[in-house]
């Protein structure tokens, strides 16, 4: 079959799965629901893999026209190129594994069918996002993943203890994302105003005919609005506080949506519109600094979080910050490389934590864990691999992708490079603090939980093992050129070969000696940190304190640098004050008065007018005659004086 129809199948299957599970899922058995949900993501993965193998150039697939105006038409269409198909494979591939895992994790949940329906719909929206041929399609998918994220964060909204918190977290994520979405909408309008189109290729072509200067106001405002959208979805400063709260959702959701796929939509958006960003070095600088700041702030906060998922959430924010650093430096394919490896190891870590949480009777506090190594050998193994990969242990996937970002940053001054190294080291520190606290030492929970500690079933461990293998070998996608003779930078080549605009951007390659130097330096740093962490947490058996007992910088970290409190007093409080003090005056004093005058007028005029409806037949007849005589008289006079 031709690619055109195959790609439609890729979109159709998850939608179909969502509809089936959403409508008739209530009456199906859990295993059937799970198999349908998983198959509807697994089949698109196979299809997209076959497309990936045969893809040689970008393909446009127009579908239908939504709005037709004289000068502007809004079309729904798809576009398959290297970037799109690569993202599709990540989404469906990781999605399949997480669906399988969910079959075990969500077992016995009353909303089992609903969960799989939402997940399928999420995959559908995300595929629209990456496969759309225009900013409009992207926006459609963007909103789709937003609503699915909202539904899944608040999935256990009727939970007895945490129901309210889950709902609030979902609402926070939704509201925060709205701010970013506004940026995307404004960017769309600006693009229509400037180029008269939202199609990626059309804009790219028109950029050659319409002269648009470097750093002109138009291009800066467009790119800044696009970046605002990216900060919302990808949880960057200033809109990052929703992501850690989004961990209220079930753990597979955190793995799929809030680590591997949806939060990378912002990075995809920037890479997709790279031809715009290349014209705006000013915006690129902003992206670089925001990314760097986010990466450091999030890493700092992650240092003293005691909730296992919160640590991973802040680590996600930190890694996303690193990806934005790569984007700010113009290394688009490097950012996608880190997206890919991050999807592998972060999905692994989240699913691993899901396995741990399930074994601990939904206890997420790491002060209540410890010594899980002997109870959960498989989970321990894969979690160790994930931790090593994210920390940048030599020759694992994270090592290569993070190294490329460091190499890209090397040319931009010692301060940026130093801060990048700092961020990477902080990653290793907080990840190994968590790892040692969870798996080593004595179990610190209650006896009842200890008696029930167990390894998760195969349906959960098999996806973990697959992800662990990917996390180990994921670096092979983009080997640096000095390590192997041929086939180096495969992902760079693949992406720039068939993605518009990327071929124009040449990745910055360092001298071999410097590159090897950076690699060896970071490896030694990571190994040192692991060693020190081992001494602190295993040899000296140091355990962490409760969150309320922290003081000094630790308190600052555990309180998330007071970002929530800051936003609360900056935005929520003033609005609350306004609602309580100003609005009653306007409402009672002005609006209510106007409305009551209006209603009084309507009532009194109605009372007057209804007297006409007397019920007396001859009075109706009398008015009828008056009317007829009046009309005849009018026409007689009219014809007499005006027509003759």
């Amino acid at each position: 079959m031709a690619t055109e129809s195959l790609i439609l199948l890729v979109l159709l299957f998850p939608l179909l799965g969502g509809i089936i599970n959403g409508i008739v899922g209530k009456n199906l058995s859990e295993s059937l629901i799970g198999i349908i949900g998983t198959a509807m993501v697994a089949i698109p993965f196979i299809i997209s893999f076959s497309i990936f193998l045969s893809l040689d150039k970008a393909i446009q697939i127009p579908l239908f026209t939504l709005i037709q105006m004289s000068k502007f038409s809004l079309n729904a269409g798809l576009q398959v190129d290297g970037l799109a198909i690569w993202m599709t494979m990540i989404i469906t591939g990781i999605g399949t594994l997480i669906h399988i895992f969910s079959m075990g994790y969500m077992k016995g949940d009353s909303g089992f069918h609903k969960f799989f329906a939402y997940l399928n719909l999420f995959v559908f929206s995300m595929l629209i996002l990456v496969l759309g041929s225009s900013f409009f399609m992207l926006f459609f998918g963007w909103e789709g993943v937003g609503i699915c994220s909202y539904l899944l964060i608040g999935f256990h909204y009727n939970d007895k203890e945490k129901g309210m918190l889950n709902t609030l977290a979902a609402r926070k994520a939704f509201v925060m994302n709205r701010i970013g979405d506004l940026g995307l909408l404004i960017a769309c309008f600006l693009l229509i105003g400037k180029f008269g189109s939202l199609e990626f290729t059309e804009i790219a072509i028109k950029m050659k005919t319409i002269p648009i200067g470097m750093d002109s106001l138009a291009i800066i405002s467009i790119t800044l609005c696009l970046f605002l959208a990216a900060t919302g979805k990808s949880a960057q400063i200033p809109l990052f506080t929703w992501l850690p709260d989004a961990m209220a959702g079930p753990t597979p959701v955190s793995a799929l949506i809030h680590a591997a796929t949806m939060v990378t939509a912002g990075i995809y958006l920037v890479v997709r519109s790279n031809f715009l960003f290349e014209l705006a070095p000013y915006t690129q600088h902003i992206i670089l600094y925001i990314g760097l700041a986010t990466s450091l702030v999030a890493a700092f906060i992650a240092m003293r979080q005691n909730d296992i998922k919160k640590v991973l959430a802040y680590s996600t924010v930190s890694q996303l910050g690193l990806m934005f650093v790569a984007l700010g430096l113009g290394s688009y394919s490097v950012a996608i490389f880190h997206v890919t490896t991050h999807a592998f190891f972060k999905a692994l870590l989240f699913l691993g934590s899901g396995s741990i949480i399930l074994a601990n009777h939904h206890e997420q506090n790491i002060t209540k864990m410890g010594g899980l190594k002997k109870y959960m050998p498989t989970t321990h193994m894969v979690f160790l691999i994930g931790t090593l990969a994210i920390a940048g242990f030599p020759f694992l996937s994270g090592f290569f992708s993070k190294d490329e970002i460091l190499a890209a940053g090397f040319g931009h001054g010692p301060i940026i490079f130093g801060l990048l190294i700092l961020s990477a080291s902080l990653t290793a520190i907080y990840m190994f603090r968590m790892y040692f606290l969870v798996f080593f030492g004595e179990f610190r929970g209650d006896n009842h939980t200890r008696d029930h500690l167990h390894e998760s079933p195969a349906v959960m461990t098999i996806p973990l093992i697959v992800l662990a293998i990917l996390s180990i070998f994921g670096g092979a996608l983009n080997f640096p050129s000095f390590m192997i003779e041929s086939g180096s930078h495969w992902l760079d080549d693949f992406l720039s070969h068939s993605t518009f605009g990327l071929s124009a951007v040449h990745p910055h390659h360092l001298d071999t000696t410097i590159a090897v130097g950076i690699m060896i330096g970071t490896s030694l740093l990571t190994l040192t940190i692991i060693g020190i962490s081992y001494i602190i947490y295993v040899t000296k058996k140091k355990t962490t304190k409760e969150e309320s007992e922290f003081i000094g910088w630790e308190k600052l970290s555990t309180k998330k640098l007071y970002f929530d409190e800051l936003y609360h007093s900056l935005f929520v409080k003033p609005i609350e004050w306004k609602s309580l003090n100003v609005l009653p005056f306007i409402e009672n004093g002005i609006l209510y008065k106007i409305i009551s005058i209006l209603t009084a007028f309507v009532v009194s005029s109605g009372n007057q007018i209804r007297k006409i409806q007397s019920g007396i037949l001859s009075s109706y007849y009398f008015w009828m005659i008056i009317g007829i005589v009046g009309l005849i008289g009018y026409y007689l006079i009219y014809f007499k004086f005006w027509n003759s």
Partner: protein
Amino acid sequence: MAGQLATIQGLTVDYYFILSTVLFSIGAIGLLTRKNMIVMLMCIELMLNSVNLLLVAFSSYFGTGDAQIFVFFIVVVAAAEATVGLSILIMAYRNNRNIEADLLNNLKG
């Protein structure tokens, strides 16, 4: 033909016109002033027939026959209409034991 009036059986069309107007006015005023529904129905018939008369008179005046045929149809329809009107009246009488039109004022606002 201006100035010269054609006659119908020795009378000019003016007389028919005046008669018809007088009949129509009687009907209209009767409908206004009387409360008995039978009388009101009769007044309506009177108005209708005055118009019929005018139609026939003008038809004859212009020397065409189609309006005269038309009037036959109107008479038939008016007969059917009078039947309906009378039967409504009977029902009203059964309900109210009275045929005063002003008693039927349930739609008063």
